[in-house]
């Protein structure tokens, strides 16, 4: 089976869907002729024409707002926000409009829309190219929020997102675009070509939204992770020798609580890791849910390992980033309790 980078897999998903469904259109800043600053849409304009894949003005509210109108018409727009950090001008359109259109019109109008955006740090992007705003979306009723961690999942999840009848926020951990980065910033990153989850089937397949994957089976404790942190968790488990069960959530809303609860009931311990800031982060929701559903199975307090409650710094990036050493310490501490 061909191995692809995550960028290639994401491009492949859009290519497959544009070929299958004439209603799929792709646009965003630098997305058309050039193919996007991360090259996710490279070649799509040449293949499908300017009216299916095109450049947009630098106006995120315009990009999302126009896409909502297109979705209401009956198209399936898949738009790119160049960096998740640039999403805020379009946030009103996402929250007040896309998320509520089906509900407020009682299904008279719907919004099958995908908003793709690169997320997360690790590329010296400072505060404006590194944020992980997933909690700003998971808090909004009517949205689905997806974060893939591998090329295989990225393609299957993105196809599922494009086919979904409701708006989906598709957060792409940009540090994973070209390799399964595990947080060891001082070592060369292994290429995707050496990773089995880079095996991307040709053509159409989906990974259902709302289903987590167990990346590593274990009995000692449960790690809840998504995106880049899945790879950081794998490294931390290997390096500490803690027999962790690592769950890749893949979709934050809807959440696969069943898989989470079954694992925590088995292990009795839970560590939650995300790159976003701590306070009111998605980890708070996960922690509450684990407590509500697994309280009598818990043998230790639930621990959260996250970015600090500061803006994402430039020079201190690796002090901010919850890497394998910090997560490893948390695993050991949780085992000691």
């Amino acid at each position, binding site marked *: 089976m061909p191995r692809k980078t995550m960028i290639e897999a994401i491009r492949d998903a859009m290519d497959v869907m544009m070929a299958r469904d004439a209603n799929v259109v792709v646009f965003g800043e630098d997305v058309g002729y050039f193919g996007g600053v991360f090259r996710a849409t490279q070649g799509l304009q040449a293949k499908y024409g300017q009216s299916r894949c095109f450049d947009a003005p630098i106006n995120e*509210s315009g990009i999302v707002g*126009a896409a909502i109108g*297109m979705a209401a018409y009956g198209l399936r727009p898949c738009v790119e926000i160049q960096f998740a950090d640039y999403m805020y001008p379009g946030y009103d359109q996402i929250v007040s*409009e896309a998320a509520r259109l089906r509900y407020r019109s009682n299904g008279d109008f719907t919004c099958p829309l995908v908003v793709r955006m690169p997320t997360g740090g690790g590329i010296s992007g400072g505060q404006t190219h590194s944020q992980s705003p997933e909690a700003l979306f998971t808090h909004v009723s009517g949205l689905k929020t997806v974060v893939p961690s591998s090329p295989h999942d990225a393609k299957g999840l993105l196809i599922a997102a494009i086919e979904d009848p*409701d708006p989906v926020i598709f957060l792409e951990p940009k540090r994973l675009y070209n390799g399964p980065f595990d947080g060891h910033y001082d070592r060369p990153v292994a290429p995707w070509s050496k990773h089995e989850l880079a095996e991307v089937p040709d053509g159409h397949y989906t990974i259902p939204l709302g289903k987590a994957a167990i990346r590593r089976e274990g009995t000692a404790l449960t790690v809840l992770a998504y995106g880049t942190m899945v790879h950081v968790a794998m490294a931390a488990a290997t390096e500490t020798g803690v027999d962790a069960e690592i769950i890749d959530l893949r979709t934050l809303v809807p959440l696969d609580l069943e898989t989470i609860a079954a694992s925590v009931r088995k292990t009795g311990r839970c560590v939650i890791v995300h790159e976003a800031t701590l306070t009111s982060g998605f980890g708070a929701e996960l922690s509450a849910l684990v407590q509500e559903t697994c309280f009598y199975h818990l043998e230790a307090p639930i621990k959260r390992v996250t970015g600090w409650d500061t803006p994402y710094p430039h020079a201190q990036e690796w002090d901010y980033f919850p890497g394998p050493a910090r997560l490893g310490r948390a695993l050991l501490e949780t085992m000691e309790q």
Partner: protein
Amino acid sequence: MTDDAPLTLRVPEPAVRPGGTPDFSSVRIPKAGSVARPAVDADPESIRDLAYSIIRVLNRDGEAVGPWAGLLSDSELLDGLRHMMTLRAFDARMLMAQRQGKTSFYMQHMGEEAVSCAFRKALAPGDMNFPTYRQAGLLIADGYPLVDMMNQIYSNERDPLKGRQMPVLYSSRKNGFFSVSGNLATQYIQAVGWAMASAIKNDTRIAVGWIGDGSTAESDFHAALVFASTYKAPVVLNIVNNQWAISTFQGIARGGSGTFAARGLGFGIPALRVDGNDYLAVYAVARWAIERARRNLGPTLIEHVTYRVGAHSTSDDPSAYRPKTESDAWPLGDPVIRLKNHLIVRDAWSEERHKQTEAEILDTVIAAQKEAEQHGTLHAGGQPSVRDMFEGVYAQMPPHLRRQRHEVGV
């Protein structure tokens, strides 16, 4: 140290406040029939003056004059008159119902009836409006049942929106009426997107955006104009300038610019101002802009110059910020009376028939109201179910919502 004088902030004020004498002398009203009617494919650069004038058809004597006249037959005009009268009667009944506690909130159209009623008449089936909260004439002029509007206003058991939306935020795809958000300006750019989709699919349908004078200050107004002009989208963008944004006079949004219509000129979008209280003029301008969109000539910006006679909503008290008699001084008159007078001049109508029709319309509206109230009002009688609250957030209910619904026991 500097020799420069200290800077001062200038905050615009309306000419008159409560207690003062209303003054609209600054509103320049051209003579009816005096503005040229360009070809729809005219170079936008050659018709920039239309953004600073006001296209008018009905003169003081009730005659239709000039190059924008002569498009509607007697029976079409009578239809239009009935639509406006129906909207006015509907508003009066619903205002009263709100005061009686049958619903939480209402917004009336008094003085602005011609804008949405006449515009609807120029559209084709399948075209899509993205309205604000003050364009119910689009529904009434398209034959949407009054009783369903009332069911929505009452949030009763027959409410097409299941009690999820505040009153007047209707939705009817089959009537070309996009779900009204309640947020401002967001839908302007959505109209452009819908129009772009129609062009992408080589469809023939067009979109229509609606915004108020105050909301043109929103960034989404700019977004809509950028996208509309960039892609030459088949869209008509309407600004309803009713002079007031709740308590804020239109000068706060307009700043130093001459007119709202002139905002379009920088984008190369043809921009027209029209007498929004003149049914014939609104129709003629709408038809011109719609034809442009339909012929793939691109977007048009229309500023409807009108006046909000009533309060912004049932939660507003205009006597606190403008003279009580200001609406009487509004120089463009009342749209219903002007069309009525025109039809009388045409020998197609009489005061007697008008009174008789007014009574008939009131009966129709009251009958619809009785029917709606049989299905409940906001706090009495039939109501949408609590189960409905959980439905429709997504196409398929996800597990977390199912758990919450079970918690409520529905």
